[in-house]
């Protein structure tokens, strides 16, 4: 369990929120809800509607497509945003590899949150761009 104060401290250390000042971080800490999942728990489910947005505070998750491990995500990583922004079900399961502490935002609240915090959106853009480069898709 963490107090809002501890969550603010944890947020301040994550790249996604690195440009936010203290009062804005507090607002974020009150907007997101803390969530905890035991090892083996599915957090996003492939093909299911109505998914949420998650930021990992502690722990590790596997990205699994049809049961096959594709990638691992850890502290500071986030997931769920693509399904929400595209209005499509996730293409992968997200499964906790060990006890996972994260922050959760309801899917329908994500766009409003990003618009209200453009610096967070910019960080998300940069992150997605890096992921896209890593996916080695880019032509030049």
């Amino acid at each position, binding site marked *: *369990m*963490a*107090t*809002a*104060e501890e969550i603010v401290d944890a947020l301040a250390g994550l790249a996604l929120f690195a440009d936010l*000042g*203290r*009062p*804005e971080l*507090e*607002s974020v*800490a*009150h*907007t997101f*809800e*803390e*969530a*905890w*999942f*035991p090892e083996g*728990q*599915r957090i996003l*489910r492939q*093909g*299911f*509607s*109505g*998914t*949420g947005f998650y930021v990992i505070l502690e722990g590790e998750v596997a990205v699994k497509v049809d049961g096959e491990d594709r990638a691992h995500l850890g502290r500071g990583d986030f997931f769920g945003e693509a399904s929400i922004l595209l209005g499509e*079900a996730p293409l992968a399961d997200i499964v906790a590899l060990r*006890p996972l502490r994260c922050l*959760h*935002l*309801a*899917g*329908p*609240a994500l766009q409003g949150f990003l618009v209200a915090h453009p610096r967070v959106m910019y960080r998300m853009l940069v992150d997605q761009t890096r992921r896209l480069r890593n996916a080695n898709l880019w032509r030049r």
Partner: protein
Amino acid sequence: MAEVAERPYPPGDYPVVVVGSGPGGLQLVYRLSRLGVPHAAISADPAPGGMFRRFPFFQRLLSWTKPYAPAERGSRAYHWYDWNSLLAEEPEHRSLMPTLMDGTSSFPSRPEMEQNLALFAERTGIVVRYDCRWESTRREADRFVLVTSDGEYRCQVLVLAVGVAEPYKPPTPGFEEVPHYAETRNAESYAGKRLFLVGKENSSFELATGLLPWARQIVLASPRPAQLSVNTNSLVGVRARYVQPWEDSVLGGGVFMMNASIERIVRHGQGYRVHTRRSEGGAALMVDVDEVIAATGWTCPLRDLPSLGVATVGRSQLPAQTAYWESASLPGVYFAGTITQGSGGLKKYGIPSNSGAVQGYRYNSWVLGGHIAEKHFGIERPRPAIAPADLVPFLLDEVTTAPELWNQRAYLARVVSVDPEQGVRDEGIEPLAHFVDAPGGDAIAVAVESNDQAVIRPAIYVRRAGRVDEVLMEPDPLNDFRTPAHRKQLEGLLAGLGLR
């Protein structure tokens, strides 16, 4: 002395011990009794009712009971219109709430609710050892040992229905000086006062609503902007009942809503000076007031259980739970009542279950009782056969009228198993998260779901060869899914299971 000797459930060894006598505890004890699961029930309170013996502060509930509704009182379907009665097998013990209401509101008053719970306990013969306070806990071999004010209880299965009942105030300097919501005084005593309410959720809007005729000025402040339930299209946000202060603030009528963090509260003259910082822009603002009330929420009174390994989450210190409301980190410890909101389920579109409220957790208790009976005592649930020709009408009837599915959307599901030898069997009500995540044979689960646009529709989950697929059905303008189109869609889905 004779009276003391007659108190039930003396300290000792019991297969199951239930702690708490609010609606969640009462519902579970009722269910365990009817299933024949040996247990003891203890409560620190002197009488049944839990939080409803004191709260809500302004003495009226937020959960409806509609004395006149589309479904007949006492019927299963009526429970969707009556969120406050507990569930009973015996028809004469059902739908007690509407019989106790005076007709001034479709939301029962607190005393009516307390009476409803006491009457249920009395009529159904629920036995609880009252005035028995759980003080500490330890582990001895396969037993949990509860030290109470009456002595030690040992059990294999421990169920805590102790509410989310401990007032919480943030560690911010100055909060120790000001009262919590739970310590709010009579409304008249705030006459002519400038009031500062910390928090912008239902509890602070409830206080603001009740104090509108008394307070000179009301400020509601917290970092996060307030939400309205009619905007979130769910029970999330300030409920319609408490919107008046919001309207007053919009009109500039002496009520102020601020998005700001509270940095400290200091004594100032006869009152307080509240140092705040605006969430947007970060400007500092001092507010001088006569009274401050911290409507900053509650935590779960789990005592020493975290040190035994019960993982907790969030500001409310809710225990992390499995789909069947068992501690996710300490097996054998279960939860009932409003604590079960810690078992979040699928939380589609971020919409929580109703596990935090009576209309939701009474079903959790019902299902949990059956689960404990089956898992720990080998008392198997009935699994009546369904004729293949009856399956589609049965499922469409469930998604149209089943109160379990309507009160616990995307959370509880009706499950039928499909086995080449056993045929089609009704497995009863299960947590949806269990159905979609746990391994199992071919089966179908149906649930009622809504999205952020307030579209209500049936969802069908088909488990085939270990994989679960979600299929959303079309909504219906009258929420009646027993239409030819729905029948056709469901028949098509089931054809794949080799049933047709």
